[in-house]
Each structure stands twice: as C-alpha cells, then as structure tokens.
C-alpha cells in the first residue's frame, strides 16, 4: 500500500527536527502532529511522548526526521538526521526533506525489518497529504446518514480511515500545550506556533476572553445536561424569541395600537356573526339549487340562528373589558414571541367557539344518522351486528320489525341531504379555523426548534461542522512524491438543520390523510391537538 504521510501545513516552514505523531498501520498512514526542534535530549523527548501518551491515550511516537535545508551547505545535517534513526526506532522510518525555495519535497520511508527478497529495497512509495491542523482539531466529523439498523455496532468501526486522523488530532491537545517559544525542555512546532499575534491589544483581548468563555460555559452547564451544541442552540433560540417578543411589545404599546385593536375587535366579531347568519338564511332557502326538507331545515336553521344571537350578546357584554384584557395579554409578549403567538391562537379559538359548537352539533347529528342508516341497511339485507363477536351475522327478523325498519330507513334516507349539507358547511368552517391555528403552531415550532447557533456556526466557521474531506492535487513534478491538500468539506445546511434540530413540542396531528377522510365521512369528531394514547371518549 502507498504510505500516506499527513503533514500539517503550519510545519511546512518549520526548522529541521524530528517528526512526532501517530502511525496507523491498518491504513499505512502516518499522522504527523508536531516537529521537535534541535537541540533536544532524546530522553526528555521520550518522557514527553510517554506523558502525552498517558494523558491522551493516543499512540504518539517519533515517526521520522524533517529536514528543511535553508542553506546549500547543510549536508552534515542530513547525515546527523540519519543517525537519529538509530536512537528512536520506528517502523517505518520517515524522512521528509525540503529544499529552500523549492515547492517539491522528497520523501523516503525505510523499513528495516522487511527482508530484501520482496524486491523493493525496503522503501515505500510515499504520498504527502497536507492538512490544516487547527481546522482539523476544531472540526467535528459527521458521518453520512447511517442505515438505521447499523448504528450501535458501527460506532467503533467507523474510527477507520480519515476519522482516525481527525480523532488523533483532536485527542492530542496535550501535545499542543507547549510551544517552541516556551521555556520547556523540548521545543515543538505545531499550529499554536502560528498563533502569536503582532498586536498586543489582540493578545490582551484573547487573555481577557478566557475567563468570559469560562463563565459562559458555566452558565450553559447550569441550564441543562444536554450536549454543548444543544444547549447553545436552545439559548440562542430563547434569546431570539425574547428579542422578537420585546420588539412586538414595543410596537404594540406604541401609538395606542392596543386601543385600535380592541376597537376593531368587536365589529369584526359582529361581522363574522352576520356573515354566519346570511349563510344560515341561504341554507334555509334553496342552497345551490338543492331542495331541502323544509321542516328539518327550518328547525336546524332557527336553532343555529338562536345560538348566534346568544353569541353576539355575549360579545357585546364583554366589549368594555376587551381593551384592558388585550393590554395585559400584550404584556406577555415580553416572555417571547412564541408566547404571544400561542396566546393569539387561543384568542382565535375563543372567538370562533360558536363555529366549533356548530361543527359538533352538525357532526353528532350526521353521525347518528349514518349509524342509523348502516344498521337499518343491514336489516334490509337480513343481517345484524353482533356486538359480542364484533362482526356481522345473519338474523331472521319478524315481519313487523322489517316493516318499521324499512319505514325508518326511508325517512332517514330522505332526510340525509339536509343533515349532510349542514354538516359539510360547518365542517369546512371548522377546518378553516383549525388550519389557521395550525399555521400559528407551525410558526411557533419553527422559532423553537430551528438550530440557529449551528446555522450561524456553519455560516461563519464552516470547518467546525464537517461532512467529510476533499482533496486537491498540488503542483506535481515527475519523480517526486504526490502532494495533496486535504480540506474540510462543510456540512450542507439541510443536514445541519436535520441533525441539530431541537425536539419540538410534538403537537402535530397524528392522523394520516386516509384516517382523516374516513372520520369526516362517518361524522366522527376530529380533535387535532389530541395525541395518540390519550384517553378517547
């Protein structure tokens, strides 16, 4: 297999030294984490590596040598570096070399223990892959959507391949604590070496931001025990909610809008009631040219008209208090936009209570009619519903039973269009109200469950959320090892939303379209906000 050497871009300009990192034998890849500079004492280097290995449980070792020839006359350095191979033995021993001002590198990997009978003189083909250490350290790899049945077992198996590289870099934070500019016994070069700012103000700001970040982290940990991204998403959602709510509040309470709203509310309710009355007058006549049963029509129509009359009286009774009630309800917007929207949904439900009542009356009447019709239809055919066995059985009826049954069946059939029409009209009105309420609930759900922090992170720091990697072939010269640049492939926005979406309140209607149509046809009442498993009546 071709030997892959993952080299951090920050070390490409470092001075000569030893390569320190992890060797993954299954993929034949060497992940270089840092470069140890001269002068060093081999014992101290080994001690440091043992410490790092213990703290991070990553198999860090000396992988080879790195030679950066700045002048022409550094041949002795090459020999010295080769001698180091005897002190730190590692299989295979990597030797990377870069000439000053040249873009092309030379790489050699020697195996000492491989017998020469294999043909090649113990050398491997080497492929150099550059990676940005800081980005790989901070990024979180999201494996592609796994099949649902292989989730638990594959958590360890996926540590192969490139996930191993990310894992190695992420766990070796201990190694990155000391730097070549620090006073320790060993001088290392890694991504931290790039981070020294030229401006003292920026450095001071960085030092000051440390305790602030700690404080924020403590606050976040107090809120919930969920993972960091979940906490951050929830916090940002709540902040946005409250901010929007306060904006709504200031808009409502300015320029006496509450008064205007209260003044407009009663006429609107009156207008709705009037429209309903017109509708009922229309139904009591000959709606759409259909001929209704006059007596039943009049009874139902008058009954509903009286109901509307009661409702209008009730609204007029409430009208002096409406402004004050609205003002107090408007204050609740400071708790958040979602609270204000939920209250709006409840107000709509209260104001359209009469439509809900009409729907229930119409549905119950229609349901009774359908039940009667189905039972009498069975009688027609000489069958009966067996309650004990929950099935249809044949039954021999007496003649008078059959006679009365047929009579009742005929009556019900001829009264069916009237009842059905009332049921249809009021069901449509009810569904309209339910749709409006449903839209408000959807909006509330959206504000609550959208992972804004993760979306912001994806926008500003795309390398933090990685879907994978992408490679780019760098300038290549024949005879030299292949050089690739590994970059992080950020997660697409749809997957960010899908992965980090907060759990919503789950009050979506659990009916499928089929069951909804079935319930509508048989006149069963529809409860849109009832969950499955709640007590049915």
């Amino acid at each position, binding site marked *: *297999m*071709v030997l*892959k050497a993952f080299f951090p871009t920050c070390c490409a300009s470092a001075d000569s030294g030893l390569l320190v990192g992890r060797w993954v034998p299954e*993929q*034949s890849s060497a992940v270089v984490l840092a470069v140890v500079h001269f002068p060093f004492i081999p014992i101290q280097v080994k001690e440091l590596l043992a410490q790092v290995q213990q703290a991070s449980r990553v198999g860090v070792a000396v992988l080879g040598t790195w030679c950066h020839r700045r002048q022409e006359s550094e041949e002795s350095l090459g020999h010295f570096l080769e001698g180091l191979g005897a002190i730190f033995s590692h299989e295979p021993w990597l030797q990377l070399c870069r000439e000053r001002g040249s873009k092309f590198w030379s790489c050699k990997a020697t195996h000492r223990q491989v017998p020469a009978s294999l043909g090649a003189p113990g050398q491997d*083909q080497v*492929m150099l*892959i550059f990676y940005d250490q800081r980005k790989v350290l901070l990024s979180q790899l999201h494996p592609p959507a796994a*099949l649902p049945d*292989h989730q638990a077992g*594959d958590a360890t*198996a996926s540590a*192969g*391949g*490139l996930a191993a590289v990310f894992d190695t870099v992420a766990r070796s934070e201990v190694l990155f604590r000391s730097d070549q500019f620090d006073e320790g016994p060993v001088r290392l070069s890694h991504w931290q070496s790039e981070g020294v700012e030229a401006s003292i103000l920026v450095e001071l700001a960085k030092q000051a931001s440390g305790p602030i970040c700690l404080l924020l982290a403590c606050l976040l940990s107090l809120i919930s025990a969920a993972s960091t991204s979940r906490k951050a998403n929830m916090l940002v959602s709540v902040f946005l909610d409250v901010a929007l709510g306060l904006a709504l509040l200031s808009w409502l309470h300015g320029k006496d809008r509450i008064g205007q709203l209260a003044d407009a509310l009663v006429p609107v309710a009156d207008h709705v009631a009037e429209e309903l009355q017109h509708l009922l007058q229309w139904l009591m006549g000959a709606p759409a040219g259909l001929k209704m049963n006059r007596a039943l029509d009049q009874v139902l129509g008058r009954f509903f008209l009286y109901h509307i009359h009661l409702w209008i009286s009730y609204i007029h009774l409430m009208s002096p208090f409406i402004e004050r009630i609205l003002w107090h309800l408007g204050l609740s917007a400071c708790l958040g936009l979602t609270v204000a929207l939920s209250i709006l949904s409840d107000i709509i439900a209260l104001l359209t209570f009469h439509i809900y009542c009409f729907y229930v009356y119409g549905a119950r009447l229609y349901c009774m009619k359908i039940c009667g019709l189905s039972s009498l239809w069975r009688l027609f055919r000489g069958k009966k519903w067996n309650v004990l066995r929950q099935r249809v059985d044949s039954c021999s009826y007496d003649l008078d039973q059959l006679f009365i049954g047929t009579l009742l069946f005929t009556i019900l059939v001829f009264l069916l269009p009237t009842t059905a029409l009332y049921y249809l009209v009021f069901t449509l009105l009810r569904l309209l109200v339910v749709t409006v309420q449903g839209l408000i609930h959807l909006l509330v759900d959206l504000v609550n469950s959208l992972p804004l922090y993760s979306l912001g992170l994806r926008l500003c720091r795309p390398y933090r959320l990685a879907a*994978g*990697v*992408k*490679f780019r*072939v760098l300038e*290549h010269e*024949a*005879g030299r090892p*292949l050089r*690739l640049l590994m970059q992080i*492939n950020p997660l697409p926005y749809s997957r960010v939303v899908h992965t980090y979406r907060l759990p919503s309140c789950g009050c979506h209607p659990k009916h499928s379209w089929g069951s909804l149509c079935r319930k509508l046809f048989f006149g069963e009442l529809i409860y849109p906000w009832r969950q499955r498993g709640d007590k049915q009546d």
Partner: protein
Amino acid sequence: MNNRQSQDPRRAQARKPKPARPFHGCRRATAAARSVGRGVANPFLRKWVQSRREDAAGGLERRRPGGWGDRIMEAEQSFSDICGGRLALQCRYYSPSCREFCVSCPRLSLRSLTAVTCTVWLAAYGLFTLCENSMILSAAIFITLLGLLGYLHFVKIDQETLLIIDSLGIQMTSSYASGKESTTFIEMGKVKDLVINEAIYMQKVIYYLCILLKDPVEPHGISQVVPVFQSAKPRLDCLIEVYRSCQEILAHQKATSASP
C-alpha cells in the same frame, strides 16, 4: 497532422459498433508532448493510443511507451452525451496511483436563454395589458434575474470531475456555472468496485458508471450504488475509457490490500 488523421479510421474499426455520432474522437497532445517536439510526439502518441486500445481491463503490468510514464499525462477527447450534445473528457495522470477525469458539459446556450426570457416577458406584458399594473413588469424582471441566478448556482453543472487516488479514495466534484463546487469523497475502504451499469432512463436505455459501496454487515453485499457523471451523462465509449483507467488503479489497490 497526417499521422493523426490516419489513426482515425483504425480507431473507428477497433471500436464496437455504435449508432453514428456526429463527432469522432479526436486527440490532442498537450504541452508536455509538444515540448518533446512535433516529429517525435506523433509516434509516441500513436503507440500510446494503441497500448490503450489493446489493454484489457485490469492488469498491473501496463506497457507504457518508453519515457512517457514519468511525465504527467494529459489528454483531451471529444465525446457526446446521451442526447447527442457535445462533451469533452480530460484525463490527467498525475502519478501511477492518482488519476483525474474531467467531463465538461456544454455551456448555457444564448438561444435557450433568450427564448426563456422572451417567453416570461411576453407573458408579463400580456398580464400587464389585462391588469394595468406596472408592478407586474418589475416583478417579471426580478423573477427572470433571480431565476437565472438560481439556475446558474443550483442547477447548471459545467464540469464533473472524478479523482481516484490509490489507497485513499475516490472523489467526485461537480462545478456549477456560478463557480460553486460540490464535492463528495468516498474512502477506499468503503469502495467495493466501479462498474458500468445499464438503466432505463425516460424512454431510453442508457449506460452509467457507478461506484458500489461495501455493506458493513454482509461481506459480499452492496449497501449503496453511487452514480458518477450524473448530469453530464456521457455515452458508453467515454465511460469505457474512464472505467479501464480506474480499474487499473483498483486492481492495484486490491492486490496490495490483499497482501498485508
């Protein structure tokens, strides 16, 4: 030039019988070949063409014309897609273990753009004469601009690239007309094989190149089929070129991974 033209009838004979296409494959040597010198380039090129034609699928010992294997090889060929449009395939051989295939689709044609714009604006003008509202015209302009930008950024793919690196993986890149690039990388450990598959697409039966992914549970099963060059949809001759090249690398990869 004479040598090149004499190659074409031989190549046409050696190919499998296919429906007549308007474009024959024509090969151009790149700067690397031109630097060798015009007189020498042609015999090398002819040998290279011959060796690629005679090459069976797989095979580690691929006969390379002398002195050619150390350079980065680049070759561009012209093919056609399933609808008869013109495609260009560019193969780059960076090293024995790394190859790149780039299929360029035809650009957005001025004719279709003008046709769509005229249709939208005529419809808007018709609405305007009915409604006498000038907002409709501004809305039509806005919609056309947004639609064009959206089309260039989300729909129109200019180039599709397949990069295969031995023992690392296969990378597929789609470059959109607005410059956006969308990349997918599949690790070599997950790749089972690269095959040419047949499919029924609308009213045609087409060939497409696809990558078979291993099933983690079942050793001989396939968990997913990932099609390559989905929007370019080249024909079988182009696919065969890419397939043969990739199979060399995959065979080498399998041979080295089998021996630990």
